Structure formats: C-alpha cells, structure tokens
C-alpha cells in the first residue's frame, strides 16, 4: 500500500541524515558479514591448537595474537560474532515480542487482566535474572537455541512493564476514543494507534537489551550452560582470558572491544531509529 511506502520513505530519509546511525549500521553490517562468511574470512581454524604459539602477542602471522591453547584470537573473534549476534538479536526478539504483547494487553484492557499479567511479571522479576536464566537453561539443556530462550525470557518483564506504561499514557488520549467511535476493533487500535506511538522506548530498550543478552550469554557460557568449548563466544573468551590479564592483556582487550563496538553500534542505530520513526522530527 502506498501509505506504508510513504511512512517508510520518510523514515529512511530521516535516518539518512543521522550519520552516527549510518555508521552504526555499517558496523553492524560488517559484523553480520563476519558472522556469515566466518569460514572464508578467518585466517585459521577456530579450534586449531598450536602448542608452539601459546599466548603470543599480536604479530604478522597472528594479527591479534594467540590464546592459552595457541589458537588464533582473530579467527575466534570472527567465529564468535556468529554466536553473539544470533543470541543478541534472537533473544531480544523473543523478549520484545512476548513482553510487548503482554504489556500491550495488560495496559489496553486494564482491570483484572492487567492485574493478573503484571503480578506474574512481578513474580518473575522477584527471581534474580541470572538464577532464572540458569534454571531455564539447565532445564532445557545446553545449546545455542535453549540459551536464546533462557536469555530472552529473563528480560520479558522489563519489556512488558515498559510497554504497559506507554500504552497507559497513550490510551488516555482522545484519538483512541476517536478510533473507537469509528468502530475500530481492539486489534486495529492496538496495532495502528497504540503500537506506533510507543515504538520509541521499545526500540531503545531493545538495543540496550542486546548488550545485556550478549553479557548474559557470556555469563552462562562461563558457567558451562551456554556455548560449549571449543566453540568461541566473545563472553566466554573474555572470561577465559581473566587469569592472564596481567601478562597477556590483549586476550581480554580484543573480545571486550568486540562486545563494546557491537553494543555501541546497536545503540547508535537504536537512537537513530527512534528519531527517524518520530514524524515530529524535521525531515
């Protein structure tokens, strides 16, 4: 439909003005390329050990040095992008979809529905996040997909609460009443009137949650519930490098940098997207 085109069109125009967001987009694109073409890009196999080259500083043969088993850090980082991006994006999608749906229903219908749903969310929030993730992933067993579910479910309440509060503030506005007077269905009101008007905080929360998801993944991997060695994962690499931080600092710096760059890029995109989605911004 033409109306969707025009909305998308203006959003893209506004996004293009935001250089930081464009930069973030390029970084994310590069990371995705790394993840997709890891086999072709990586100079070495991520699991190949070389006991002659243990914890060697960056050099011409190993650009980012080698770890405690003589494995190439650069190759491991490139392969690690796969896991981190998958977990980050998919886990957040799970929590976004579940959380936003629960929050929208609770906020829109109010009353008993609201009370029941939000008390359930409160119960979940009362359980420490990491503990909950551990419980879920140990119940489901280790593995990439189960890890995503575990990490995703832990941040559902945060999305639900955010969504609910935005819905409550928008529900009171007269255009919702106007939509009802026109005879719009509940689904239509939620999808076309409420959701677009509370997208901004959700988008920002999502980008921040990707960072969290990557960190939780790292934690769970560290505890042996996530990605199993020798498969590389940034958080796992970071925790494995901990004993050598004095002598071989680069071992923790590079995975740390990788995580940081990803998160900063996602935040830039999120910020840009939030501004671009707001029609009040100048074109």
């Amino acid at each position: 439909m033409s109306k969707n085109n025009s909305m998308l069109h203006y959003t893209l125009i506004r996004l293009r003005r935001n250089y930081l967001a464009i930069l973030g987009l390029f970084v994310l694109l590069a990371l995705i390329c790394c993840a997709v073409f890891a086999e072709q890009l990586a100079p070495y196999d991520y699991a190949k050990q070389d006991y002659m080259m243990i914890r060697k500083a960056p050099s011409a043969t190993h650009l980012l040095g080698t770890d405690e088993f003589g494995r190439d850090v650069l190759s491991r980082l490139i392969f690690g992008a796969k896991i981190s991006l998958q977990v980050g994006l998919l886990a957040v999608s799970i929590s976004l979809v579940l959380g936003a749906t629960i929050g929208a229903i609770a906020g829109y219908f109010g009353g008993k529905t609201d009370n029941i749903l939000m008390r359930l969310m409160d119960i979940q929030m009362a359980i420490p996040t990491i503990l909950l993730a551990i419980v879920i992933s140990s119940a489901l067993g280790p593995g990439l997909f189960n890890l995503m579910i575990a990490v995703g479910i832990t941040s559902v309440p945060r999305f639900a609460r955010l969504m609910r509060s935005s819905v409550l503030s928008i529900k009171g506005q007269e255009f919702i009443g106007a939509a009802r007077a026109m005879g719009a269905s509940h689904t239509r009101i939620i999808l076309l009137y409420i959701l677009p008007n509370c997208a901004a905080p959700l988008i920002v929360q999502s980008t921040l949650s990707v960072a969290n998801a990557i960190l939780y993944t790292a934690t769970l991997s560290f505890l042996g519930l996530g990605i199993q060695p020798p498969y590389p994962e940034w958080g796992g690499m970071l925790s494995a490098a901990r004993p050598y931080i004095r002598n071989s600092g680069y071992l923790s710096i590079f995975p740390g940098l990788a995580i940081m760059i990803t998160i900063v890029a996602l935040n830039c995109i999120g910020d840009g997207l939030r501004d671009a989605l707001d029609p009040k911004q100048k074109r």
Partner: protein
Amino acid sequence: MNSATKKDDVLLDVRHLKKHFHVSRGVLHAVDDVSFTISKGKTLGLVGESGCGKSTLGRVVIGLIEATNGEVYFRDEDMLKFDGRKKSEFRKKAQIVFQDPFSSLNPRMSVAQQIAEPLIINKIFAKKVMELMDTVGLASRLATSFPHELDGGRRQRIGVARALALDPEFIVLDEPVSALDVRIQAQVLNMLQELKNERGYTYLFISHNLSVVRYVSDEVAVMYLGQIVEKAGNVDLFKEPMHPYTQALLSAVPIASLAPKKERILLEGDVPSPINLAPGCRFAGRCAYRQERCLAENPTLREISSGHSVACHFAGRLERHA
C-alpha cells in the same frame, strides 16, 4: 410512549439517562437522570462548567461510554440495547468531534490516512478522501502532512472530516472550538453551520462558552452537577433565564458595551463534589434564593412556559432572601 416526545422529527430521545462511576471515595454521579430530545436537523447546545458531566453525557449518547441506567432512543430504537452488527450500524450514524485537536489525532498518521481510517474500518470504498478534505476546506496538498505540521484549525477540520466520512445523521461536537483561537473558532463554527444547513445534520453541541452556544444552537440546555437545570429555545433562554444558576452564568458573560455596567451575580462557594451527593437541590448551597424546601427536595425539570423547562421549585417567582 407519550405523544409529546414521540414526534416524527425527533432524532434523539434521551430518557432518565444516568452514568455513575465507582471511585474510591464513593459513587460519582457524572450524569444523573438527564432527559432531553433533539429534533432532526437541529442543534442542542449543552452548557455547563468544567466537570459538570457534559462531555460524559456526549460520550454516553453515542455509545463511547456505557450508561449506568436509562434509555437513549435513536429514531425508535434504544441505542443502549444495541450489540454486534446493530452497534456498528449505529456507529456510522452517530459520530463525535473532540475538543482537543492535538490529542484527538494519531500523531503517526498523515492527514489522508486519518480521514481514510473510518472508511477503511467500515469497508466503504466508494468515498474519496480528497472529497472529504474539500468539504471541510482542507487543501489537497496537505494530504501527506502530519498533524503536528498543521495549526489547530486545520487539525480540527481533520477531526470534522473524519466524523463526516461515515455520513452520520447525528454528531456530538464536544467543545469543538474551545482549543482554537478566536478567529479560527469563527471559521470552524461557520463551517459546521454550513454543513448542517446543506446536509441536515443534527448536532449536540457541548461547550462552556455561552457566546458560542448562542451562536450555533436552536435549543440550549444548561447542566449543573450531572443534571439539566434549564432547557429552552435559544432566544428564550438568553432573554429570560429562569434558573438562578443560568442567571448567574449569563451575567458573567462579558459584553462590549458603553452602557452602565450590569450587576453581576457572583456565586458564593464552589461546585460541590459530585461524589455522594446530599439530598435536596444541587445548587442550593450556592443559591441566593434558597429556602427550606430546596435543602430537602431536589426539584425535577418541569415546563414553565411553552418549550422552557426549569428545575427549580421557585422558577418564575424567585425572591431573594440572603
């Protein structure tokens, strides 16, 4: 059904309508036993202070809020009993224009989308958005603009176009001009009047602005604390107000004139809370004419002269006691 209210040209017949809200401190009587009729093609002006229940009344009448009790006859059918398909039929015939043109439009939709919404929802494809924009005097170049880019008058025109899209017979205008500046108020009012004359719409015009109501209404009802205290033809009411509250309201309207100042009736006290009301006349506490009977018994609306009803025990023979 009595013959007085069952005339052919009556479009909306509201009988003993009540809307009570249960709040933490008790029961809030937003609309309490209100009855009135609006004839086809006429405008009933509904005046009252903020919080007297006039907006609630407007919303109940078009089915946006459920009524607690009473009957709302649209044509010959009680609209409060509608459900399913009948309700959506009724939705098409009764529309509303909201007070605040800033919060009544979806900020994420362009002008054309806003106006197309009622058509899409009700699966009407024959009508053109551009025609509607033309009807309300919106230039077609504004079709892709967003509400925040327009001034209040234009936004309100979108609201009107949206209400007209479904070809309603009856439109509730809930303070349609009070958020606009005076010059634009006149434009929008004139547009509404022209549309009414051309197409025979019936309006319930809600406002706190007496001059505006006087300008647009055929009949005027004055509301105080959830009840109608006086109802009369436009000319009658402004010439000869009978209820002490109406008199006070009218004396407060500023008039540009060189004649010596009229004496203003200043009301003492504040509007009492509509929660857990005391028996007796609701206006008694602030009335300069109150007598013992007023504190004991709440007067009902009764016809004093032809077409002029007042809810006051002493209407027409008020004596000041205070």
